């Protein structure tokens, strides 16, 4: 199906949902959120040097619901891109994707929820976009469950959609505020052949002394071994918050997800590597406005018989609204010199400007990275970004203008610009 036909079908579906379904009259609201982005930059193409590239993106979101009330709702989001310059920079002059479009029913009791259509499923071993049906509900006081089935969106380019299917679910046992233990399962078929089959266990436990435990393990049923173990704690010592974590990945079982994988990950599955990661995040508020953040991460490779470390320190000042100033220093001590780099970042966002000011907010960002071993003859990269914005029509319309400059191993002096118009419309039906 072509992109035009797909979006046409989508529009008709949205129109049918808005006017065709028997929505309860009370307080049903239609919300439309549109982001239109016009970018401009220069690139070499097959036929021209420093050709101007002018892509225009439209991100559209539509929601029909009675906010906060059980019942029917419809949600839709997608994006499309057109190339105004049409100078062969993009392989396809148009592109786009329907991210989700689903009809949802939320029950008054038992947290019952049903969704039909294109939707994301994030739970247990599922991190999938599905064209299909998902049901979830409490199963009494101590259990809850969910099921989904349909076709995997990620595989629609792999030998068509015929014979593609996905199904799975999660069963959880919980004691509110104490713990939750989940068992999950997922199976994907591509062209009627097995593509991926995973089972997982996830846990959250709220231990004494305000210590929280989160954990997740994924078992690859095809390869009959665990692909991932990820476990973390979070707790505070005085005002210092810590999040130590442990992760272990077996590449063959983690990346070996059959037709649902892609390069370069398929290649990595054959390396037999086993990666162990241990690390911690530290967060320390200082006074009313300052927060200090530290991160340390150690990577250990069994086959390579080597290790890497990453450390970073960050200081953030937060003010009213989203106003913020921050600075960060990071250092990657890789297993080889080609994997060493340091990073310095300064960023700011200020939305507390006086009313007399012609703009509503201004933000800036500087990122400098130094590489121990040069990449394409360059041993550093610099990125500078500046954005301003203003709101109109009682904040329904926001216009933003951004410009950024980059000098790095891939681009000598790269200037880019972007104009964004964000429009939000709400109407009671």
């Amino acid at each position, binding site marked *: 199906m072509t992109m035009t036909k797909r979006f046409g079908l989508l529009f008709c579906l949205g129109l049918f949902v808005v006017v065709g379904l028997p929505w309860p009259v009370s307080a049903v609201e239609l919300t439309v959120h549109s982001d239109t982005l016009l970018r401009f930059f220069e690139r070499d193409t097959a036929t021209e040097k420093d050709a101007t590239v002018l892509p225009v993106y439209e991100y559209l979101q539509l929601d029909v619901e009675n906010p906060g009330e059980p019942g029917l709702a419809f949600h839709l989001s997608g994006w499309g891109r057109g190339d105004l310059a049409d100078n062969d920079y993009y392989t396809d002059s148009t592109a786009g*994707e329907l991210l989700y479009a689903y009809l949802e029913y*939320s029950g008054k009791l038992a947290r019952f929820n049903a969704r039909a259509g294109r939707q994301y499923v994030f739970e247990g071993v599922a991190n999938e976009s599905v064209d299909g049906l998902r049901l979830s509900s409490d199963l009494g006081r101590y259990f809850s469950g969910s099921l989904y089935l349909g076709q995997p969106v990620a595989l629609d*380019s792999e030998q068509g959609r015929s014979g593609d299917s996905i199904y799975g679910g999660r069963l959880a046992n919980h004691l509110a505020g104490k713990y939750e233990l989940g068992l999950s399962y997922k199976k994907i078929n591509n062209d009627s052949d097995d593509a991926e089959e995973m089972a997982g266990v996830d846990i959250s436990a*709220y231990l004494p002394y305000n210590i*929280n435990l989160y954990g997740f393990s994924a078992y690859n049923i095809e390869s009959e071994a665990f692909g991932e173990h990820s476990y973390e704690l979070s707790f505070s010592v005085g005002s210092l918050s810590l999040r130590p974590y442990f992760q272990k990945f077996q590449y063959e079982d*983690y990346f070996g997800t059959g037709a649902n994988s892609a390069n370069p990950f398929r290649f990595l599955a054959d390396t037999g590597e086993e990666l162990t990661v241990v690390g911690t995040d530290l967060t320390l508020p200082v006074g009313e406005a300052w927060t200090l953040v530290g991160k340390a991460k150690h990577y250990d490779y069994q086959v390579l018989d080597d290790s890497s470390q990453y450390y970073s320190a960050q200081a953030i000042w937060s003010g009213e609204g989203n106003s913020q100033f921050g600075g960060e220093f990071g250092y990657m001590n890789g297993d080889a010199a080609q994997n060493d780099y340091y990073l310095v970042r300064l960023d700011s966002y200020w939305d507390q400007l006086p009313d007399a000011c012609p703009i509503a907010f201004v933000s800036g960002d500087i990122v400098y990275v130094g590489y121990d071993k040069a*990449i394409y003859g360059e041993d550093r*990269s610099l990125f500078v*970004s500046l954005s301003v914005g203003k709101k109109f029509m009682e904040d329904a319309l926001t216009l933003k203008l951004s410009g950024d400059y980059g000098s790095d*191993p891939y681009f000598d002096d790269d200037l880019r610009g972007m104009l964004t118009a964000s429009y939000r419309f709400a109407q009671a039906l």
Partner: protein
Amino acid sequence: MRTNHWIGMGMSLLLLSLAACAALDSGLQLPLRHESAADLGQSTEQCTDCHDARGEKLAFGSFNHNEVWGTAHRQPAYQQERVCAMCHQTSFCSDCHATRVELKPSLKNQGETYRQMPHRGDYLSRHRIDGRVDPTSCFRCHGNPKAARTCVPCHG
């Protein structure tokens, strides 16, 4: 085949249970939407500003959006998607977690530096190193054939 048989039976049983037990309330129902900052008359920066860290229905402390939340929300979100949905539409998640988007999140939301989005600046160069050091973090968002279209031009 025998495994599939048991899995099929288990899932059918769960489906029947879902249908039969949908009226068995757990007493854990949270509002579908959180009140907005405007309705509350104050900003809603941290859950524990108003709720107990260990509430009767939810351990609210686990959902505090502190400065590392952007890289630490995976496990709470996978277990309690409904809590996220109280404040965020799915589109908020799909800014980063979409099956296929062309613009990286930090570029689409260029001016929103306070969101600490990943891949800021010259990530094209840096991803060579981060990808070698820990490719598992790339896989979560770029691992399937559709999402990997970003990788295909260079990685085949």
